[in-house]
């Protein structure tokens, strides 16, 4: 179970995996994610299901290496099995015929955008894509986006590909240029999603974002993923992860995302994957022995 059937580095520190998980592949919808645990001492963490192949029984994951868990995952090889993989979790995206939609991905955020864009397209919407990244070599999944959208704008921070600047600037130009926009979907770093919400708010453009708070179980049992939406507390893993951007308290989300930053950077420094056996390679089984410090 959970065998890595294929892996490739599609940008620096950014990987695309095909993982054998036929039950999840069969059931998943756009907008849903899985929770993984990569090795015995590892964390549970969420990744979006980018696509699935029900015949091959595989799901596609695209992730960026940011800390310990993602680094361990990136160190795995084809043929190895991911220790734990649960899903599909989260509410599927609400897909309707909105009209003309702009789908925006910043950095790895383009990965979660792909399945939603595909579903929007299948529902008869007209799509424009905006794909932003730091530099040309960090631009990912551009061909996939082009397949779905009738037009794709690319932008990079340094101008090495497409526009020089941020995705928000491209969107602002479109709005100012009087382009018809009925719906915006944006996934990426939280400041980017907040900026887009601010941009579309005055124009009353329906805007949806996919939030990425810290999660543990991913099934509603811990409350760690809580976010404030329209003044109410929601659990992103069961009420989301997608919400109306104009109602999200991004300030709080950003603070909560930083909750373990200091602790985690220490951990990443102290424990390199090379020194930590993968997948119970140490021979010891699941939680054994008595617990002390």
């Amino acid at each position, binding site marked *: 179970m959970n065998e890595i059937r294929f892996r490739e580095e599609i940008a620096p520190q950014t990987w695309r995996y095909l993982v054998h998980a036929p039950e999840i592949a069969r059931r998943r919808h756009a907008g849903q994610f899985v929770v993984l645990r990569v090795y015995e001492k590892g964390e549970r963490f969420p990744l979006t299901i980018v696509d699935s192949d029900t015949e091959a029984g595989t799901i596609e994951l695209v992730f960026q290496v940011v800390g310990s868990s993602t680094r361990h995952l990136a160190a795995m090889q084809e043929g190895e099995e991911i220790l734990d993989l*649960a899903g599909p979790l989260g509410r599927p995206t609400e897909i309707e015929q909105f009209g003309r939609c702009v789908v925006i991905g910043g950095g790895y955020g383009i990965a979660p955008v792909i399945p939603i864009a595909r579903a929007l397209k299948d529902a008869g919407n007209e799509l424009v894509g905006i794909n932003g990244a730091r530099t040309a070599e960090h631009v990912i999944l551009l061909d996939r986006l082009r397949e779905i959208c009738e037009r794709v704008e690319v932008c990079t921070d340094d101008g090495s590909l497409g526009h020089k600047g941020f995705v928000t600037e491209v969107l602002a130009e479109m709005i100012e240029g009087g382009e018809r926009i009925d719906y915006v979907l944006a996934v990426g770093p939280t400041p980017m999603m907040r900026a887009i919400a601010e941009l579309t708010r005055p124009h009353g453009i329906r805007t949806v974002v996919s939030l990425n708070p810290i999660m543990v179980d991913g099934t509603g049992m811990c409350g760690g993923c809580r*976010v404030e939406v329209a003044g109410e507390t929601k659990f992103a893993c069961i009420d989301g992860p997608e919400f109306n951007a104009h109602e999200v308290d991004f300030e709080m989300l950003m603070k909560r995302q930083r909750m373990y930053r200091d602790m985690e950077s220490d951990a990443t420094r102290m*424990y390199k994957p090379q020194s930590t056996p993968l997948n119970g390679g140490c021979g010891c089984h699941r939680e054994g022995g008595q617990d002390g410090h």
Partner: protein
Amino acid sequence: MATNRGDGRQPMPERPAEERVQDFYEVPLGYTPEQAIAEAKRCLQCKRPLCVGGCPVKVQIPEFIKLVSEGRFSEAARKIKETNALPAICGRVCPQETQCEQTCVLGKRGEPVAIGRLERFVADWEREHDEVEVPEPPQSTGYSVAVVGSGPGGLACAADLAMWGHDVTIYELFHAPGGVLRYGIPSFRLPREVLDAELNYLERIGVKMRLNFVVGRTATIDELLEEHDAVFIATGAGLPRFLEIPGENLLGVYSANEFLTRVNLMRADRFPEYDTPVHCGNNVIVVGAGNVAMDAARTARRLGAENVTVVYRRTRAEMPARAEEIEHAEQEGVQMRFLASPIEFVGDEDGWVRSAICQQMELGEPDESGRRSPVPVEGETFEIECDTVVVAIGSRAHPLVPETTPDLDMSRRGYVAIDESGATSKEGVFAGGDIVTGSATVIQAMGAGRRAAESIHRYLTGEEPPGGITAEE
């Protein structure tokens, strides 16, 4: 070595508080064989034992205690296992003072027989002496049953069904089985090796486990019914409740579920060796006064918090936690602030919680539960400094299964509705444990699991369960 006081009853040896707050090892050390025999000899061997009536699964208490008094410990363990598949666990976590020991006749004048401690002793003895007998695999019935959730309710149901020859698969959303026994109850009350051994027994009698399987998501109940002849839902009441007051989403404010799961399941006590962190500052407030609150408070002490204060809106007399847990918490330096109810958490500019503003309460008239209900003292509030808050005010039913099973009738409070046999409104689907009753106890969930197992057996075969000892209330 510190010991409990007690007239008559053999005291339970315990590790001293100063030592045990340094680690997550178990607090009570267990009886020696001599102590167990001496305690067993106190039992009057009543002809009509009242103790049995207090046990939700009707453990054959005088019978097993007689075997203990004769030094036949492993036989005693097997006697218990006729009705209770997890004695090493129940001996540790059952609230005996409100169950079997409450009704023991000796309790009328002095102290009741220490039934729980004896239960724990014989189960530990059997395991430590490698005398656990795995019964012969029974003739297969050809029926297959899905059990959803691997908490005590699911485990008890699975054990019985497997013993009667059914093919049983437990589906569990977490990566490790046990339910609250795994992620809720800390290892200093229930060591993981004890839990693992009990789970191992289940696997040895042929119960299969599908971990990382989220019923309602990975497959629905209807889909499980395509592969199985019956389903038992034991998904627990795992959803945390919050106070719904300002500042509750500040950094450092946890649900007890998250705080305990990070430590118990994910091993945040051993961060950074384990990847999952937990934030536990020096001034911790725990809101609530049940077992969960005591577990969170004692865990916080073990994570190094100097000041841990339990904030409760009633008084000591109304605390729902077990007496033993309250006593242990206090020995370990946990403070109690009664008649106080947080109305707001105040944070700093980075969003971290810095204090709790509490409303002073007083006790008013008794409410429908018979407890005197707390009422605010108008205008009297005070502030407690804190850097971590753990909210332990109860839980709700898990909605994933109900939401994805349209023809499952629910009770008013969002729990699954069942009849006396444990059957739900849906053909072939049974339910029990916290998902039916709301938060209760381990042994009540097990009792419900066993009752459902009997009903499932009848439903599948049309016959009474073989040699089944009925676990009716």
